[in-house]
């Protein structure tokens, strides 16, 4: 009987393989464990608030009546921040990747990255101490000239510490994230596709519309969603800038609140059921962020056939 000579193998080479695959598996599992642990913690700690009698929750109308306005406030602040930041970020990214001379481009890219390095409490202090007073005359003008729109209804806040100011500060904070990711994506556009567009007689802007933006679209969506994640979860800046209050449609009056700022402001003095309520609010924020990310993935995969990956 002969033994198959192919069954013997050099053991030394295999050990490294096993260690490496074990390490990657462990890293992958660790992420899941941490995520699951956080979710479990949030759910367990939140249950008392969810099952408590309505009268015991702050406001006296139950958890959902308490959290509803704050969720809306959070979404308003995040959406306004993205509406302001996204076009600017894409514009800056395109300028750096396709318009600016090479020297200027690298300098500008560095400055934009530097924006991301500023701590959020500094943004908050800047927003509260500088931006709010500077911008309040503009709110006065909006109230008297465009007050017929519910979102600009007067009387405008005299301090300028409104949800719109908070959103503007948030937009400056998410700008570097969206800009640097978009810039990386735009720089990766295949030269082949850019030249194809130019050779057809496209101007530079047409080339960007034809080759750069379609190629970068999934990347832009991911960048915006990352920015949205930051805007939804940003705490310090909103807590410092916004003079919070009940939900109101007007963006230039004080009022509204975001989940993260609500938790940060109330957690230190909270006890008992109040803690559970705030953790449940955290759970809601977690679910919203998860939902946003899933929608982003769905948008990206929907156009996979045309993505150029095939």
């Amino acid at each position, binding site marked *: 009987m002969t033994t198959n000579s192919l069954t013997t193998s050099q053991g030394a080479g295999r050990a490294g393989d096993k260690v490496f695959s074990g390490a990657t598996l462990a890293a992958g599992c660790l992420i899941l464990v941490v995520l699951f642990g956080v979710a479990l913690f949030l759910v367990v700690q939140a249950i008392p608030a969810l099952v408590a009698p309505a009268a015991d929750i702050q406001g006296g109308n139950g958890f959902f009546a308490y959290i509803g306005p704050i969720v809306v406030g959070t979404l308003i602040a995040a959406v306004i921040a993205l509406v302001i930041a996204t076009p600017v970020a894409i514009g800056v990214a395109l300028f750096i990747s396709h318009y600016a001379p090479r020297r200027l481009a690298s300098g500008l890219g560095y400055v934009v990255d530097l924006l991301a390095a500023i701590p959020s409490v500094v943004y908050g202090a800047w927003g509260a101490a500088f931006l709010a007073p500077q911008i309040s005359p503009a709110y006065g003008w909006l109230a008297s000239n465009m007050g017929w729109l519910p979102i600009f209804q007067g009387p405008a806040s005299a301090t300028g510490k409104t949800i719109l100011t908070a959103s503007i500060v948030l937009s400056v904070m998410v700008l570097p994230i969206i800009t640097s990711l978009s810039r990386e994506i735009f720089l990766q556009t295949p030269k082949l596709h850019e030249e194809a567009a130019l050779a*057809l*007689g496209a101007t530079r802007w047409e080339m960007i519309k034809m080759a750069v933006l379609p190629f970068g679209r999934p990347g832009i969506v991911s960048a915006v969603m990352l920015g949205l994640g930051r805007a939804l979860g940003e705490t310090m800046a909103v807590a410092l800038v916004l003079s919070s209050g009940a939900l109101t449609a007007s963006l230039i009056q004080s009022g509204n609140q975001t989940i993260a700022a609500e938790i940060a402001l109330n957690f230190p003095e909270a006890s008992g059921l109040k803690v559970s309520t705030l953790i449940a609010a955290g759970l809601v924020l977690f679910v919203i962020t998860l939902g946003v990310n899933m929608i982003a993935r769905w948008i990206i995969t929907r156009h996979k056939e045309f*993505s150029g990956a095939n």
Partner: protein
Amino acid sequence: MSKRIDVKDLNVYYGSFLAVEGVNINIEAKSVTAFIGPSGCGKSTFLRTLNRMHEVLPGARVEGEVLLDGDNLYGPGVDPVTVRTQVGMVFQRPNPFPTMSIRDNVLAGVKLNNRRISKGAADALVEKSLRGANLWNEVKDRLEKPGSGLSGGQQQRLCIARAIAVEPQVILMDEPCSALDPISTLAVEDLINELKDEYTVVIVTHNMQQAARVSDKTAFFNIAGTGKPGKLIEFADTTTIFNNPSQKATEDYVSGRFG
């Protein structure tokens, strides 16, 4: 609908590096002209100066004149965008826009500069261009599918359809078959033979048999050594270049003694 090209004393630079020196060549309308020569001799670089694609690279510039029926491409006030609508280009690797359907790929150049086109006219143009590129029968049932789903040879013919849809005067081809299999190569070569009835075709090729098969005239480029500029050595009828060249270097190259 085709124009001749006359090149006078053209020097091509990358920054301060002289890549191609002193080219004088007259390319007839409605003919196929092939550029052959060893790698790095500047034939692709020279081709890209004929529709001002050369200057897309940073630091690239030219000296001299390229006349398209007497109009200097490098004259003052000439917009490279206008030049490129007159002189189309097909690249080495097929490059249909991956995010566009086959139909939209064909119409990509036509819809530029905010030109509007009715659906009927667009349909007719798509069919005419795809028939012109010998691709219509293969794709007519899947015009809305992405162009990147086609085979390499079909993609290259789609790129040719896209180039002829804008009705250029001249079509430049930069080694259009080097990424294709022999069957697809044959299809593209047949197409080149048909294209010369309407267009001036200039093709760069590494394949001397291909130059012999498709071209009326052949230009041989050579380089004296690394770091030296490429030069046009000989330009004549294809049969002359391959059977009875006047230069020793040309004879050595076409007979396979170097390159």
